[in-house]
């Protein structure tokens, strides 16, 4: 059932697609984190802005990924931008929500103590609020990374040039359900997702040595 010859002949391709998968996912999460961080800080300072930011992000999150990729093809063509923009947009919902929740979770007494010690607002944010929000921020990064790794497989519908490991799933299907190739894409992509999840669980433990890591369940 497994075509070992195909596997042996495609080890380079599998390595290349795995690296591409990690690259596309990491780029999406990194850009998404940068944007979310700014949005969350703005939302935390100007509370009135949070509901509209959150609502807009929520609507974007609802739109199926295939539709977002397809929509962008007509605008940005078969480029890497078409692959990355939806990946970034999906991370925004998870990350903004978790960063804001992390900042909100800082107890009032702690803020008062920081103020009493003469911290300026900026110092209080960077030295007190953000460090205390780190566990929830890491929990958000975990969810965002794992879901982005899943979504990268779908970028293969844009063009054969993308898709990471998802390329093999689509290509194998187009060859008439060539299972060896489909599994060569499916199994490593699952391992990547689970590996990333595990990595962030470790990171969560490390940043909250005083407690068992508690992830904020991203449910509504």
């Amino acid at each position, binding site marked *: 059932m497994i075509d070992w010859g195909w596997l042996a002949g495609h080890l380079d391709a599998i390595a290349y697609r795995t690296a591409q998968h990690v690259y596309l996912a990491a780029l999406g999460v990194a850009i998404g984190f940068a944007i979310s961080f700014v949005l969350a800080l703005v939302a935390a300072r100007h509370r009135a802005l949070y509901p509209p930011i959150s609502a807009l992000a929520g609507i974007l999150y609802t739109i199926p990924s295939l539709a977002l990729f397809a929509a962008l093809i007509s605008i940005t063509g078969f480029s890497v931008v078409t692959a990355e923009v939806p990946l970034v947009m999906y991370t925004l919902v998870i990350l903004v929500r978790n960063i804001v929740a992390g900042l909100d979770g800082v107890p009032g007494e702690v803020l008062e103590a920081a103020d009493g010690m003469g911290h300026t607002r900026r110092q209080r944010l960077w030295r007190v609020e953000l460090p205390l929000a780190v566990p929830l921020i890491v929990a958000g990064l975990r969810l965002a990374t794992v879901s982005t790794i899943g979504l990268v497989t779908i970028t293969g519908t844009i063009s054969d040039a993308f898709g990471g490991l998802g390329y093999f*799933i689509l290509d194998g299907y187009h060859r008439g359900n060539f299972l060896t190739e489909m599994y060569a894409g499916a199994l490593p992509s699952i391992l990547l997702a689970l590996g990333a999840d595990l990595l962030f669980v470790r990171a969560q433990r490390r940043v909250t040595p005083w407690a068992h890591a508690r992830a904020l369940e991203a449910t509504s």
Partner: protein
Amino acid sequence: MNLVTATAVWLTDPAQWAGQAGIPNRLLEHVLIASISLAIALLLALPAGLAIGHTGRGAAVAASLANLGRSLPSLAVIAIAIPVTVLVDPVLGGTVLPTLVAMVVLAVPPILVNAYTGIAEVDRDLVEAGRGMGMREREILTGIELPVALPVVLGGIRSAAVQIVATATLGAIFGGGGLGRFLVDGIAQRDDGQVFGGVLLVAALAIATEVAVGLLQRLARSPGLRRGGRGPVVGIAPPPPVLGM
């Protein structure tokens, strides 16, 4: 021809509104497969979630299972399911069934997690009061815990339904029907009008699903628990500690 006119032309072409490849039939296919997989996921996850929430047993196992399910890339689940589903049905097993499997696998975690956390977070005083009144365990679950937890339980169903509508579009990649056909065929044919028309339809269906279950969720909030409702506000447990501090 620019994007807007191409889309408008495609959407208003009478040919799009009739026949097997028409919008109404594709919408019906999409809703049908989504409903079937949501029903299967509910059957699998809801009783288990309620039981775990009520008894508190198996929560850790369910949480890690749910986390596993949530981590799986949907396209990978479809690919992995194919050899199994082909054995079940040689024709449908290569097209619709693997997508159905993926939809169920991805819909179970949110339903399960919200069902058991919703039930587990019901104010213990309420449950004890029920017990003191001589209610049986089943009566406590259906008469107290479920009504109080219903908005949370429905929240999980909402996430699952939206997830299912999204995954159903992927079925078109594997030769299935549904609204995803317009996206996949439109990309293959470089037909911008069809792609964008499909995008609008798929997005509208997803948002409609979210809004519909959201409304249901709002209605499900028990009158006794609504803020400003009559009587004392009971049953709203204090928010769980977020940081574990």
